[in-house]
Structure formats: structure tokens, C-alpha cells
């Protein structure tokens, strides 16, 4: 079973079309293995992206360098998955 320890989901707010373009550039960097939960297309809709642990530092550095605002939406994905699993097991019982 695939685990997601240390993976984060960032909520990114691009304040302009130019910054949206920078997020689209990020999307093309396939080696980072980013999982865009909402796509960078419309500045009115925040971009949520799941980031593998090994790419976290690079992505955050990229965002900060380009003055793109973000918040951490999910601190550690695996923690939430574990909670969800426990709850399901509890309900099963």
C-alpha cells in the first residue's frame, strides 16, 4: 500500500495571470511528481497541489522566490489517511 508520509497539500493563491503562468510552469516539471488537486487556470480559484516529501523544499523555494502566496492545507497527508482508516474500521466494528 502506497503511503504518503510527510506529503503536504499546499493551497496557492496566484494574484495575477503572470503568477498563474508561473504555476503552470511548475505543472510542467514532471520530475517533481506534483498532483494538482485544482488546476492553475483561474486566479479566482486557489490552486491545491499535493507535493511528495522530496519535492517540498523545491516547490516552497520556487513559490517564495516568485512571491506567490501559499498556505499549508494539509500538513501531513498520511496522518489524515490514518485517521480516515481508523474511523472506517471503527464504523465496520
Amino acid at each position, binding site marked *: *500500500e*502506497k503511503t504518503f508520509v510527510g506529503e503536504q497539500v499546499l493551497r496557492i493563491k496566484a494574484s495575477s495571470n503572470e503568477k498563474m503562468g508561473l504555476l503552470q510552469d511548475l505543472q510542467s516539471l514532471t520530475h517533481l511528481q506534483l*498532483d494538482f*488537486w*485544482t488546476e492553475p*487556470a*483561474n486566479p479566482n480559484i486557489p490552486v491545491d497541489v499535493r507535493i511528495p516529501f522530496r519535492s517540498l523544499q523545491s516547490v516552497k523555494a520556487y513559490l517564495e522566490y516568485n512571491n506567490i502566496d501559499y498556505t499549508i492545507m494539509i500538513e501531513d*497527508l498520511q496522518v489524515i489517511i490514518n*485517521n*480516515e482508516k481508523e474511523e472506517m474500521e471503527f464504523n465496520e466494528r
Partner: protein
Amino acid sequence: KERNSGSFNFGAFHTLDNLYNAIDLIVADYKSVVSKQQIGTSYEGRPIYVLKFSTGADRPGIWIDAGIHSREWVTQATALWTAHQLAFDYGKDTSVTSLLNKYDVFLLVVTNPDGYAYSHTANRMWRKTRSIKSGSRCVGVDPNRNWNAGFGGPGASADPCSDSYRGPSAESEVEVKTVANFIRSHGKIKGFVSIHSYSQLLLFPYGYKCTNPAHYTELNTVGKAAASALSALYGTQYTVGTICSTIYQASGGSIDWTYDIGIKYSFAFELRDTGRYGFLLPATQILPTAQETWLGIKKILEHVRDNPY
């Protein structure tokens, strides 16, 4: 062990087997209005069941499906709750009763059963089908890029390893072909609602192109009325519009295909998020999500009922 649909815990996430058991319970409890049809088999051999809500023969139909992207668990849960509500309300709620006295409703609770099972057992973040393509090490196709609507156009990937891989050809995925065949062979589907999550959007065609559909004004009005009805319960705000103008250009999507074959009332919901969990919406959110979504869906169903074409 849950013994009837009334004691089933709709406010929890369940495995595929449990969902299928719940479907059987609903059918058993409301035999006069609901039946189960197996319309096909998934790539890995799982049955694809649709619930048919019907009170008479030879009626036009309305299609509702959920969970084409498997990791969106709240959509399958919402659809299951909706199934129970629809059956329960017939004969009690005037709107549902008059709807089912004119139309059949087909409800596909788990559109992508292989993906759903895989997201429960191997990869919680899985969103595609589980089909294997020769010549690629990567598995699966994004089933909402695989419909025959602008297939292969912008907003879908040709890379089998991408999460939005469109597949080798339109309807290459048996899960998509099964639904498309059903819609084609039925011939009288007048409304099509696809339930996804998350980000609170109510979308209508087009996604594969950025031009407005011929019925833009009507669809926009219906969509806004549905979003308004939905928000009346908990204040959840939806954005309404075409796929292309609201989110981004995406080819091969289901509601574009249904609209292009003549199903005027084609909509897709992106259900609520609390702004903190994305696809991992806590189970405590299932019932509020389902309850508010039902109000939006009902508005669309009523419009279809009252505006035959």
C-alpha cells in the same frame, strides 16, 4: 451487520462491497420504486450497477452518476445517500413523486469500481481506471478525459503516466463505454448529472472548447437556481458556469459528450470542501454534503421535469 437501509450508516465511508450491499438493502426496502441493473463489468471484472427508480413503463430518463474519479469518496457516499432519499421520498415528497411519475431516474453510485477498490486498498490518491495498456509501465486512464467529445484536444494528456491521461481512443475504457452504450441505447435520457468533488462548482458544457453552448442562458439560469437552493441549507457557495470559463479547458469530458448528443440538461457538480481537506473530507461532512447537494440536484430534476423537449 446492517439489516436494512434504514439502519445503514450513510454518514461513513465504506468499501465497495459495503456500498454494493447498501444498494441491495435499498432495493429490498423499496422494491416498488427501485431496481438494480448490471449494465456492464469493469476492466478488472467488477459489476457496474445502476439503480433504476421507476414507477411506470416507457418513460424518459434522467441519469446521475458519481465517483468517476475514484478518490473523491464523498461523491460515492453522497450518491448512496441520494439513492436512499429518492426512494424514501417517493409518495411522501410531492416534487419527487411527480418527478418519478413522469421520468425514470438512473443512479450510478460507483462509476469507477476498480479505481474505488484500489483507492481503498493500495493508493488512497488513485483517480484513474485500472486498465493496462500495452507498451506502457503506467496503469489507468482518466475516465473523464475518455469520452467522445473533443477527444485528444487540449486539457487532457497523451502521457499514460499522467493523472489526466486520455487513453488511446475515445471510450477505450469499459467503464466509459458501458455508460455511453447505456445512454445511447436508452435513447430518451433528458438530463445528465455527474457528481464529482471538490471545490464547489456547478458546471455545464463546454470544456473541450471555450465557446458557450446554444442553451447557455437557460443552463446558466438553472445552474444558478440549483446553486442557490443548495446554499440555502448551510451557506455553501458554488460558482456556476461553463467548464472552460470556470476552471480550464478539458477535453473528453462526460457532460460535453452528453450535451453534444442532444441531452440539453447536462451538469457536473464539484461538491463542497471545507477548505482544509480536499479529497479527504472527513466522514462527518458526508451528510451535510449530501443534504445540500440533494437540494441542488432536485432543482435540476424539477427543471427537467417541467421543461420537456
